[in-house]
């Protein structure tokens, strides 16, 4: 199967730089998968799981990927995400705590709109992290 060059960067640095067969992630408009030979393409990344099918390896690498852009050019596929964490680097307990806290703020009556907005974003991120870890456990 043909492969393409994939590069993944975030504010914390470079996460992946190598050949991949397929990459799937969630954009603001829904799930997309990129295969080799895709036309030049730019889209904004939403919040969701990113799956990288590394060339020459059987297993899929999963990561939590939130915000930023996906750029496909003739030469390479670039993911510039604001948050990117491989499943094995996610702190499951911390995400769980963050989820409970955010839910607490959302259900409280006296939190300001702004606080709720922040909590909503945090909740989304925590849910993504938990899901990514769960998925990688099931299908390892």
């Amino acid at each position, binding site marked *: 199967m043909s492969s393409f060059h994939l590069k993944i960067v975030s504010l*914390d640095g470079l996460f992946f730089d190598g050949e991949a067969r397929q990459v799937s992630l969630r954009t603001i408009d829904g799930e997309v998968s990129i295969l080799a030979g895709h*036309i030049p393409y730019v889209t*904004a990344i939403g919040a969701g799981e990113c799956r990288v099918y590394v060339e020459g390896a059987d297993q899929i690498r999963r990561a939590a990927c939130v915000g930023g852009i996906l750029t496909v050019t003739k030469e390479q596929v670039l993911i510039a995400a604001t948050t990117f964490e491989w499943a094995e680097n996610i702190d499951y307990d911390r995400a769980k705590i963050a989820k409970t806290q955010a839910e607490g703020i959302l259900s409280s009556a006296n939190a300001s709109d702004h606080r709720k907005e922040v909590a909503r974003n945090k909740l989304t991120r925590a849910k993504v992290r938990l899901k990514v870890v769960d998925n990688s456990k099931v299908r390892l």
Partner: protein
Amino acid sequence: MAGSSMKDINLRIKSIKSTKQITKAMELVATSKLTKAKERIKKSRLYQSSILSAMCDIIARNIDTSSVYLMPRDVKKSCFVVIAGDRGLAGGYNGNLLRFANEEMLGKKVCVLPIGKRSLDFYERKGYEIISDDFAYVEDIDVGNCHEIADVLTEGFLKQEFDEVYIVYTEFLSALSQQPVIMKLLPIDRNICENPVEASNDYILFEPSSNAVFHSIVPSFVTGMLWGAVNESLTSEFGARRTAMESATKNAEEMIDDLSLKYNRARQGAITQEITEIVAGSGM
């Protein structure tokens, strides 16, 4: 009497020595933090340049440039994000930055989002309108915080709470020189694209549309810029502190040398006097 002055000098030497130990330790801490902060700047560059080039691509190709993020509007109120340090003892680092920010704010109706203890204290004391005091410690700021700040800024901008957003931080030129700078975050300055891409014929598919992509990456762009500015400021702070502490250590050394000389003179004087007294007493 020479004896008591010897004791005084000794005490001073001791106290300066302990001060020197502190300044030396601070210098070393600043040096190691400086290396880390520099590393973080390097790591975040690739992300920033990719976001920027995507934005420039869209700006260059897009005929419809009515995006609120691009259109300058009548400025009723400006928002300043001012990044200073948490602590003093960094030479003129905080003072220079706050003075610079004040000059830039002159004649504008402003609200401030301070980052760093010194910045927050300063604007609180002066009674400025403060958007958020959640970011008092610049050393603790992480990428998540930058997200939050970017959300606050873009939301406020869209709701017309303010009409332009500036960020004031210190640029790290070299370990010896740092300079306060100002950058316009919103509305986005078209000149930010250094070499404007000619609307090339290469076809790029934007999904769902170039406008939608543009709108949703602006907060990512602001986050990246903030993170860059925070790290640049931190690097500058550590650089300034290292230089300040280096010269403090050097001064302490000079003082110790000087005092040691005085101490030795006093000791020699005391000995000479004693000998003179003995010789005179022996009646030779």
